[in-house]
């Protein structure tokens, strides 16, 4: 059953980047992964590395000085 104005409404909410097409895949021997999943996993690793490597802004009120 079609809903009046539905097409316009859904199009209005449509994405800026259309991902409704087949993904690309990385295929190596038994390893097969879609680029979207691979990007998520690589981003996780990068964010983890950055979280450890980037300096954390120190509070203006430093901790007690160690003697």
């Amino acid at each position, binding site marked *: 059953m079609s*809903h009046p104005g*539905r097409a316009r*409404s*859904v*199009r*209005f*909410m449509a*994405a800026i980047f259309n991902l409704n097409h087949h993904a690309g895949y990385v295929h190596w021997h038994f390893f097969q992964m879609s680029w979207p999943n691979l990007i*998520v996993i690589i*981003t*996780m690793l990068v*964010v*983890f590395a*950055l*979280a*450890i490597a*980037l300096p*954390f802004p*120190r509070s203006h*009120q*430093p*901790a*007690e*000085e*160690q*003697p």
Partner: protein
Amino acid sequence: MTIISPKPAPPRRRSWTLAVRERAVGAWPPEKLLADEQPSYVSSWIYVFGVLSLAALLVCIGSGLVLTLKGPAWWHDTGVGLFFNSLHLWSVELFFFFLVIHLWGKFWMAAWRGGRVRTWVTGALAFLVSIPTALTGYVSQQNFDSQWISTQAKDAMNSAGIGAFFNLMNFGQMYSYHILVLPAVVIVLVIGHVLLVRKHGVVPPFEAGKKSQRRRPRQSRSKPRPESARDAPRA
């Protein structure tokens, strides 16, 4: 008529209520539950991923609540429905994204040290229960994704005997699991996890405990705290 007795009140008898209250207040005094200080070693971006996971869980629950209020078919037909479905999907992706980084961070800190095993266990359980919570969501979508995932994943469930009472192709059952049973378990585990973090505090650095116990700070620029609060580990 009220009779006012001059006699002192009899000693309070031990009650279950009193015992629970004393234990709860002992474990989580207000200054520990809503701490305004944290140990000096908590100085890394890795510490923000726990609270980011929690925030993503809240966005996920909020967007899920809107989808629940309108019913399972709404999001297929309206732009606003699709919008909330998208919020729900991306908050789930972010929840797992932050949760896994939080988990990696806590592993490399060996955050179970110093009596914090239960904190690790509740966190690990919350992660594991989140997986079927997501799965039941995927099979409740009422689209091709649900058809394919339910007919494929049924074999794993059936092989382990789970399929006898957990039928991925039964939409009514999966929807109940997704919007009530499993989120409730995740929320209870997360609350327990956060309470344990508040109680035991963030794990101190390796080999730092002994040294820092020998050296009491000579002077503190942070505001003085009552002695009872000083003994409490902070997160």
